[in-house]
């Protein structure tokens, strides 16, 4: 609220007759301040204060019940020597390898659906259904689908003569299993964005290129790929931000972080430290590190996005 109170006196407007305008403006300022007051208040209480709280708490030993005890940088030192922290961070980053695979597949799908042919609306719907389905239900479904003996995945593999593993119980396959599921769920979203981008590429560019004798493949690399760059960039960034926060799948499919902690992700580990072990101070320190990593990616997006737009426009 302090921001608003400071904002209340209207800026002097020298170009107009002073009195009437300032009364009118002041009334408008008041109404406008009222309209933006709720989001500002929400921001102060549920974002700004929590961040300050988190920064202070990260330097304490705190179980969430008794008063926090200052312990300097102990939490950060502990992080450096905590093998589970590194393992969870490593798992989180490793699972992001699914991002390029998913983007490539969704681009191919979008190219296929960009053709003039019957049934594209139908396919678009089919591919999009996993996107809107709740992740909790999807995680439950895939947990059962990955069952070693009776799961859908191994049954399907059985048709082509492959004897599949017990996916989620095996340290080597647990992470890929979750990555496959993530690709499956996210495919429709990226496909849709690529499709929209493909359809907004001016057709004249292709016509002109065709007149100049460019082949379909040359047209693809010279026109399509550059025109899709902003969307690709947007998808990479949002996928990284989303991937950094992967939790539900882990919590439902591998409640204990998987065999040998192989599916423990950073958010899952923070959650466990905070709400299972009540190491709130330590968990807060880790959550700040996560926040800084995500912030760095977002800041990069804003910085590069500006340049992207200049190059396209």
């Amino acid at each position: 609220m302090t921001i608003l109170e400071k904002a209340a006196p209207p800026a002097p407007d020298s170009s107009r007759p002073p009195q009437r305008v300032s009364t009118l403006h002041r009334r408008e300022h008041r109404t406008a301040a009222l309209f933006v007051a709720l989001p500002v208040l929400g921001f102060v209480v549920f974002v700004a204060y929590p961040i300050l709280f988190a920064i202070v708490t990260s330097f304490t030993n705190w179980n969430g019940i008794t008063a926090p005890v200052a312990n300097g940088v102990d939490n950060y030192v502990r992080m450096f020597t905590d093998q589970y922290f590194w393992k969870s961070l490593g798992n989180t980053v490793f699972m992001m390898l699914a991002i390029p695979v998913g983007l490539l597949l969704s681009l191919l799908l979008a190219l296929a659906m960009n053709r003039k042919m019957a049934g594209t609306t139908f396919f678009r719907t089919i591919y999009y259904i996993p996107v809107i389905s709740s992740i909790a239900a999807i995680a439950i479904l895939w947990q059962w689908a990955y069952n070693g003996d009776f799961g859908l995945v191994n049954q399907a593999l059985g048709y082509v003569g492959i004897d599949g593993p017990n996916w989620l119980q095996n340290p080597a396959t647990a992470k890929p299993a979750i990555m496959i599921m993530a690709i499956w769920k996210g495919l429709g979203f990226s496909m849709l964005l690529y499709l929209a981008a493909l359809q907004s590429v001016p057709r004249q560019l292709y016509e002109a290129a065709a007149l100049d004798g460019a082949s379909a493949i040359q047209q693809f690399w010279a026109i399509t790929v550059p025109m899709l760059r902003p969307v690709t960039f947007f998808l990479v960034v949002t996928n990284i931000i989303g991937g950094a926060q992967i939790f539900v799948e882990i919590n439902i499919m591998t409640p204990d972080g998987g065999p040998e902690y192989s599916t423990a992700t950073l958010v899952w580990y923070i959650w466990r430290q905070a709400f299972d072990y009540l190491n709130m101070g330590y968990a807060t320190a880790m959550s700040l590190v996560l926040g800084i990593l995500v912030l760095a990616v977002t800041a990069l997006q804003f910085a590069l996005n500006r340049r992207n737009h200049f190059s396209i426009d």
Partner: protein
Amino acid sequence: MTTLAPQPTESKPSAVSSRNQKLIPSRPRSAGYRMGNWIVGLVLSLGGITMIAPLIWMFSTSLKTREAVFSLPPQWIPDPAQWDNYLRVWDAGPLLTGITNSAIVAVSVTVVGGAASALAAYAFAKMRLPYKGVIFLGLLTAIMVPFPTLMIPQFQIFATAGLVDTLWPLILPAIFGNIVMVFFLRQYLDSVPDSIIEAAKIDGATHLQIFWRLIFPIIRPAIAAQFILWFMAVWNDYLAPIIYLNSPEVQTLQLVIARFNATYASQTDYPLIMAASCIALVPVLTVFVIFQRQIIESIALTGSKG
């Protein structure tokens, strides 16, 4: 910020491409193109089966007996279909309570928060307010902060207020508005000319009247799209509920089915788990089928905005 987005009205991809179509005399598709369509159609069908098969299998499993789940080779069409799994499931856990709780949270959050967001977007786009650019930028930083970073302090706030294990921690932070929605609606309002607002002011309308009679009808499609997306996001949320809710009577639907899963997996009652999961999907699938066009358009718009 203006470089971030094209005008909403510009990016109607389908309209653009069909207009271009008319400018260029359409040539008959060659036999090669039609052949290509067959191959692409086949590939898309195979992919489509992969996308939908797990969901069909989920539904199929929900209609089996407990024993039939483990039969090899698997039966895709359960015989006889155990429809009473769908009756059993309501007694097996607080499913109905979960649906009610999810509905309470999703409706209150989207209605109140949506109204707050729309009013704020109007103020940011069209009203005079000192430092509004700075305030708006400040709010935008909230988008960059991931929820896991805020969850422990927020939990502490609600623990101090004695509101843990109620629905309030899920509702309160959201009813102050959604910055993404404010951002989106503000962009959308750029296409509304200032002159009509000035005219209404001269006629003596208050800003609330201007918003309600003039602005709201214009931005209604954008609000609807944001509303639906937000509703689905709140409905499907899992992390915040699992932090705050313990008692069965306050759990949201996603938590209820997750607890279902944990409980009945040990009893290998997979048909019951799958029936509960299917029921959890019905509301969002229904919303999707009804509002498919708005959802797809607003997603496409979101992406083109970057």
